[in-house]
């Protein structure tokens, strides 16, 4: 027998176990699962709908949720630079931009527009109640990492060039990208 038997540790010598330290506070965060991405399809160009899109997009960005906004059809117009008055290559495209001025600061209401009085009143009320303007919220959404994807087909249809669009837009994409993101689990929202 070569093995040396270890002397049994007398129980009396064992230190009295200190109570386990309690965490400073129970973490509120109960689940560690990654939140779903959010995909907002910005289809409408009216003030109230663009505002809703931008409020939700900036909030999602602030919540650390990966957020993308696909700007298509009328919903692409808010993402043209405010300074662009007439856009497009041919007379019909130019006429379209003449009838509805592009840019986020030139949105009309779908109801009760009254030659711009509706949007003006909305703007005054928003200022009175400290609601951020769509333009300010758009800048904040971009700062918070929200991606704005212009629709290539709409850009072609309106004759829009990348230099007509606001700074920081992502590369133009198509419907397949949008469906692909949804198929991968992005929460879709159509506004």
């Amino acid at each position, binding site marked *: 027998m070569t093995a040396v038997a270890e002397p049994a540790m007398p129980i009396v010598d064992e230190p009295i176990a200190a109570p386990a330290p309690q965490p*400073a506070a129970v973490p*509120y*965060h109960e689940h560690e699962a990654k939140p779903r991405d959010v995909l907002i399809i910005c289809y409408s160009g009216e003030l109230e709908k663009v505002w809703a899109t931008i409020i939700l997009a*900036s*909030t999602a960005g*602030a*919540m650390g949720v990966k957020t993308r906004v696909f700007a298509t059809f009328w919903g692409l117009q808010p993402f043209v630079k405010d300074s662009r008055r007439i856009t497009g290559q041919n007379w019909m495209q130019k006429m379209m931009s003449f009838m509805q001025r592009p840019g986020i600061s030139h949105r009309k209401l779908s109801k009760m527009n009254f030659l711009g009085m509706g949007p003006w009143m909305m703007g005054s009320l928003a200022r009175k109640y400290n609601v951020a303007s769509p333009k300010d*919220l758009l800048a904040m959404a971009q700062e918070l990492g929200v991606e704005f994807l212009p629709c290539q087909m709409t850009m072609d249809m309106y004759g829009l060039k990348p230099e007509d669009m606001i700074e920081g837009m992502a590369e133009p994409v198509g419907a397949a990208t949008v469906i692909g993101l949804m198929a991968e689990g992005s929460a879709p929202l159509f506004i």
Partner: protein
Amino acid sequence: MARPPTNGKGSGMPLEIAQRVDAQGLSCPMPIVKTAQAVKLMVSGQLLEVLATDAGSSKDFAAWCKTTGNELVESSVEGGVYRFVLRRK
């Protein structure tokens, strides 16, 4: 003035606020947006105090903390002013 936050163990030790956001008077979603912007500039474990008057903010801040994983250390309301103390994840 509201009392300083404690470490939640009843020892009454005030915790150090590293950053403050005054979102009083601002409407949804600005208190949350400003909070997210402030938290980005902080390091893990630091405390942020937010003051807001938006009546939806107590639910909004709980939701924000739940989704982002930051800890809501304190949430109180006094005289229509909501006060939140958050610990950066």
